[in-house]
């Protein structure tokens, strides 16, 4: 089943076309890589899919429902979650609370009940904490944690509500080799739970190791897409990364 369809997405900033009719598809349980050099339009693509940047053309479908017109929080509530390159954790809340606010359903007049009889969090966070190995630091504030762990908190917060699709913006940035390997394993586990993952990453080793499908873009245009192995050896990708066609490969 196709969890996410981003169809013919175009993002423009003023006169600059950051993303030009790019399409991606993510099936449940699948990891799709979105790669490209700096400034290729990768983050704009995630922003457009999640609703943080307006699209000039294209549509976004989540589990078969058109969410193109929905506000970001509605897409998130419907099961489309993301992480941020700059993490954007809630620094005033503990790790567990970071997850709780991302997991609880919102109701219009819940605030009135909370004034009289506060709704405590339901125990839904343990599973996500366990999956990401954060149980031990659950009651810490994010700022007290090392940066690698903070990245994982970002991922945990995005999966706690059991989304159908997770979009990851450079989750391995700043991680060392060990941590990156751990991260890859963790992402695989999340996908095995039935979540569709769209992975933006600079670390192409990681992408080609764990992704089934890869879409490569440059200057906002798709230059290669398909099964990871095909894309890895495509001339267009090599040209984009090295500037000139070259036999050495990546």
């Amino acid at each position: 089943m196709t969890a996410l369809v981003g169809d013919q997405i175009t993002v423009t900033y003023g006169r600059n076309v950051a993303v030009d009719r790019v399409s991606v598809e993510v099936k449940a349980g699948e990891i799709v890589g979105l790669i490209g050099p700096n400034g290729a339009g990768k983050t704009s693509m995630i922003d457009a899919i999640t609703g943080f940047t307006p699209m000039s053309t294209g549509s976004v479908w989540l589990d078969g429902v058109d969410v193109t017109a929905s506000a970001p929080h509605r897409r998130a509530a419907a099961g489309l979650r993301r992480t941020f390159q700059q993490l954007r954790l809630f620094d005033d809340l503990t790790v567990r609370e970071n997850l709780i606010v991302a997991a609880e359903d919102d109701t219009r007049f819940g605030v009135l009940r909370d004034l009289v009889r506060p709704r405590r969090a339901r125990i839904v966070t343990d599973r996500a904490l366990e999956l990401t190995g954060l149980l031990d630091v659950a009651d810490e504030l994010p700022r007290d944690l090392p940066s690698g762990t903070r990245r994982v908190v970002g991922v945990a917060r995005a999966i706690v509500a059991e989304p159908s699709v997770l979009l990851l913006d450079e989750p391995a940035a700043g991680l060392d080799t060990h941590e990156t390997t751990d991260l890859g394993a963790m992402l695989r586990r999340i996908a095995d739970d039935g979540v569709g993952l769209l992975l933006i990453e600079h670390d192409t080793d990681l992408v080609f190791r764990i992704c089934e499908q890869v879409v490569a873009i440059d200057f906002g245009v798709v230059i290669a897409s398909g099964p990871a192995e095909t894309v890895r050896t495509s001339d267009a990708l090599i040209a984009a990364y090295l500037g000139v066609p070259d036999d050495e490969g990546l």
Partner: protein
Amino acid sequence: MSQLLIYVVLGLGPGAVNALLGLGLVTIYKGSGVLNFGHAAVAMYVAFVFRSLRQSFDWPTPLAFAAALFVAALMGLLIHLLVMHPLRHAPVLARVTGSLGVLLTLASAAYWQFGSGTFTVNPLTPTEPLRIVGVNVGWDRILLFVVALSLTAVLYVVYQRTLFGLATRGAAETEKGAAVTGYSQARLAAINWMIGSVLAGVGGILISPIARLNAFQLSLLIAPALAAALLGRFENLWLVFAGGMVLGIGESVIGKYLNGIQGLTATLPFLLIVLVLVRKGSALPERGELVYSDMPLAPAVHRTSLKLAVFSAVSVALLFLLPTSYAAAYTIALIGGVVILSLVVIVGWVGQISLCQVGFAGVGAYATIRVANHLGVGFPFSIVLGALVTIPVGLLVGIPALRVRGVNLAVVTLGAGLALERMVFNNPSFTGGEQGSALPHGAGLFGIDLDGRTQPARYGVVVLIALCLCIAAMGNLRSSVTGRRMLAVRSDETAAAASGIDVRRVKLQAFGLSSFIAGIAGGLMAYRAGRVSEQSFVVFQSINFFALAYIGGIATIGGAIAGTFLAPGAPFSLWLRNTIGNDQLSGTLSGVGLIVTVITQPNGIANVVRSEREKRRLKAARADIARTAATVESDRVEPTVQGTRT
């Protein structure tokens, strides 16, 4: 036609001052990234210095002028060095708070240094007007207009053509931008602060013969000045000049032709501000700045009922043991606590800077009285109904908050406070005039007389109960899902939306709740004295309470209690009046205290105690992490195997 011209000409003076102050605001903002809410207060203070040198010490006018402007430059430098430079990497809230501290300090300092009244200033120009196309034009207007126009031109040349101007504009883009040109950021900021403050000084001095001098009134010229600066998008000096002139002339003309609408003239700038801000989302160009420090701590609440029990017991004892005047003052302090609680929700927990909380209290107070007078609703339901009326007003003010944030919202709410003050509280058709401001009966319940005037101690208990109920509700909220959601919004709106949180709903909930609590405070004020006066709800009081809340700890419930005892009319100021015969000192203390707090203890008094505990906790946490890291290290092999299974 010539009628219209007369009013256009009359508007030239205020227009030019708006422009001068607006230019100064832009200069300072570009040079240092600070929106100085104390800017008009600097103008006011300099004008007082000028007047006293000229009229009390008989200095020749040019010398007094030069000396006053020197003082202005010095003030700019000191504000920069002592207040804003230490806060350069602090979050917006802290910097807004710092400049509000400047505003409070200067206003109250001028108040007891130069006097509380309104002072006339001898004219600077020949009184004989000039006749231009059949209209008398006062020399004072011409002078102001010419000065504003030429200073705009000079500034324009300086910022466009000189290396200094280039460096300043570079610094406004990114903090490192200035460094490229070889100027130090700190020096650029200092120079721009001095230039901006001198501009304020010029404006203040030139307007004082026209508008007369009053410490508080002149400080509030910040609202039209902000409007002018915003119309120029803090960028285009000529647009700032034009904006200032349009506002000044507009006020004058509207005052003539639409004088049926009370307070419209004073509200015009606010409406303009809101329009510009809501249209653009944010009128202040963003600076690529580094923020290192955090928002004030919003600690979880523990053992609320125990703490409340102790607090209540002590309060009841004090209310009945203290002399009557102090018991009454204690009651005022308790009501202040309710106002501060309303700030804790909106500013502390959701991070929305609101400078019109006392305005909400005013709406609650007048609504309570109306409900009691016209619907015959008795105590305490009248208070609850009155507070409910406040909610729509709060939501209305909250709507711009859906589009604008940070310092922009501070500007909007300041304007809202002014609009409430001028259009509603000063308007007899809303308040019912003298008669309408009195309650039919004092408070009473089940035959027990709780009248605030005759039974201050008993009424104090009533207030105490209300305060405790509010505190309990807030404690519940903080530990609930909604409370955490509020903190998430405060911390990062984008991330909150990405986590499925409806940011708009959270903000509106907070504005609704906050205005309700403030409305309760207003109702309590009404029953304390049996009547209210619009004086209690001026925008300065909102700023004052903001200061007190921040000093106490704006994100903590305990902070509300800590801050309230410094409130105007509270026991502390009563004691000051009794011992040194001057309670204005408490205003100055809260201004200075605010600055000191925001720099040294941004978490507020309530968190100082906690921070010691926090340090120990942090140490333990670090040890814990070290341990965890060690464990992870030894576990590392296994996930790697899993990870390579494809």
